């Protein structure tokens, strides 16, 4: 067996250390930026509108900042186990025999993380980020404590909710010429979620095998298909359901439940497809080997060696997706996807707070019931 020459290892190690230094440098750059931000806002009292361009520095400031942060990063590298090294898992091995005392007291295990250099650094970074975020977004907690006049009115009227239109349709509320009661529309909404989940899972199931490395990685053509399918999953998944609803609402018709179903289905295919393929990639390869050795074809491998291993987790993921779809379907009407949300936003706009309360209570009850149901089913399966 060939042993790697140590020169190559040293070179690789040097590259990684340089990269770690670069990461530390970026970190210190961030710290320096945050310090400048606070300096300008508090001590020099400049009102800052953006977070990227308003920092004004004297001419010598930039080189000073660059060199200063670089010096800090180098210092970190040299004195302890820096954040960059930790992130790259570069070990700093000290080859020395441990004393019995160290082993007994547990000192051999190393310092707790908040006393190591990288630990201090990451806590500092976290605190700095929260503080910076607070100021960039310009949060004012007083607004939370002094609600507006309208909110007081709403809170006053929403209890008790008015269930007048639970069974009987509200004559004032009409969708495409039909009157709807809360119950009617809730049933429509639940079916939207159900259809989207079933359709999405049915498409994602076969697709997921094309997106699994261990099934497709046998030929260049296989890799090509794998790349396409994985790309499809990733791109379509990163476009949120709400955005898909906008697309389909324009394509089909504003407020049509079909638009909502399509939006939910497309996102379900991509999301479940990715989860399914990852499960397929994580199977025990043993049974695959056995089926191939017995002369089984690719389809037989999937049927006999892969499916039995992934079915339980496929069910669990599908039920989990069902939960998400139920919740999504209640608000998708906001962007023209149809469903109970239409009623929700109608009452909100009309200021009918008591009726709105009834719709919200129904949604909460249904979502909770569905969550409970799928939770119980999941327990059964896993």
């Amino acid at each position, binding site marked *: 067996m060939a042993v790697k020459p140590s020169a190559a290892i040293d070179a690789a190690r040097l590259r990684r250390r340089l990269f770690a230094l670069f990461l530390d440098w970026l970190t210190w750059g961030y710290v320096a930026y945050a310090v400048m931000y606070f300096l300008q806002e508090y001590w020099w009292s400049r009102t800052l509108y953006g977070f990227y361009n308003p920092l004004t520095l004297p001419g010598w400031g930039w080189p000073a900042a660059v060199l200063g942060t670089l010096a800090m990063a180098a210092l970190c590298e040299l004195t302890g186990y820096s954040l960059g090294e930790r992130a790259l898992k570069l070990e700093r091995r000290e080859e020395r025999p441990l004393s019995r005392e160290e082993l007994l007291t547990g000192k051999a295990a190393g310092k707790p993380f908040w006393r190591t250099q990288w630990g201090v650094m990451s806590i500092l970074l976290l605190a700095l980020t929260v503080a910076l975020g607070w100021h960039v977004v310009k949060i004012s907690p007083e607004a939370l404590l002094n609600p507006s006049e309208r909110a007081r009115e709403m809170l006053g009227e929403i209890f008790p909710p008015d269930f007048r239109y639970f069974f009987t349709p509200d004559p004032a509320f009409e969708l495409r010429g039909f009157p709807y009661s809360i119950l009617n529309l809730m049933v429509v909404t639940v079916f939207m979620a159900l259809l989207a989940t079933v359709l999405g899972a049915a498409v994602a199931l076969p697709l997921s095998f094309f997106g699994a490395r261990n099934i497709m990685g046998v030929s260049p053509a296989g890799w090509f298909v794998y790349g396409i399918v994985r790309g499809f999953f990733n791109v379509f998944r990163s476009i949120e359901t709400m955005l898909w609803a906008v697309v389909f609402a324009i394509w089909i018709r504003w407020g049509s439940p079909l638009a909502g179903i399509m939006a939910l289905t497309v996102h379900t295919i991509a999301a479940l497809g990715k989860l399914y393929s990852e499960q397929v990639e994580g199977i025990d390869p*043993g*049974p695959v*080997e*056995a089926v191939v*050795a017995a*002369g089984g074809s690719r389809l037989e491998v999937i*049927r006999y060696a892969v499916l*039995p291993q992934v*079915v339980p987790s496929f069910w669990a993921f599908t039920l989990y997706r069902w939960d998400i779809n139920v919740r999504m379907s209640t608000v998708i009407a906001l962007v023209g996807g149809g469903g109970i949300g239409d009623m929700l936003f109608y009452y909100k706009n009309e200021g009918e707070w008591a009726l709105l309360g009834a719709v919200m209570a129904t949604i909460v009850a249904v979502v909770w019931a569905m969550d409970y149901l799928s939770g119980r089913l999941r327990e059964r399966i896993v």
Partner: protein
Amino acid sequence: MAEPYLVVEHLTKVYERGHVVALKDVSFEVRKGEFLVIIGLSGSGKSTLLRCINRLIEPTKGRIFIDGVEITKLSPRQMRKFRRRIGMIFQHFNLIKRATVMTNVLTGRLGYNPTWKTLLGIFPRSDRELALRNLERVGLLEKAYVRADELSGGQQQRVGIARALMQEPELLLADEPVSALDPATSHSVMQYIEQMNQEDGVTVLASLHFLSLARRYGTRIIALKDGELVFDGAPEEIDDRKFKEIYGEEAEEVEIR
């Protein structure tokens, strides 16, 4: 029988990942009906050699003939068909854990049935009868409809043997069939393999970790060391010196009874 049944010529396998040369120019021949045992340290290339013979792993160089057919030249399709004649059993049994013993045994028939039928789970009655007969043979008839993961290790390996029997193979590849089992169970499993060899005339290639097992069951032994063939001969020929050559200076022989 002048014609050897299995011929391995200058077989070399290089794993691209990690640049490991797992087999270096290995050549040997096996006659029909032999029980050939492959020994060698962990990492010496035993599993790789066995998997090259049914091309679960593609050899980098060299040729392999089985019964006069150059299997290293077969197309994937032809190879799939040829695999029906080669049974295989594995160190970790490789059963479908969540399926019944019956389903597991029937997968041995996949090569004989059209894919569209097997996808629907349809196997001819004759196959099911054969499955029951083979389960009976390994003493697991009453476990036919138990889930495979509810069986003990020894029982699982017997299911593996029944699955291999379903192929009605001429050649059996056994990759450390007993190293996950205790000594007593090891012998019972080895005896089923021996029975296949002696009663059904199946040529057996088995890798084993214990020299005592190799001596007891093998009619011939080959040894690998760092991917090279370092011994090929009768079990009795392995003396202390040979043993140290194969397993290294510090090795001690362990008995397993």
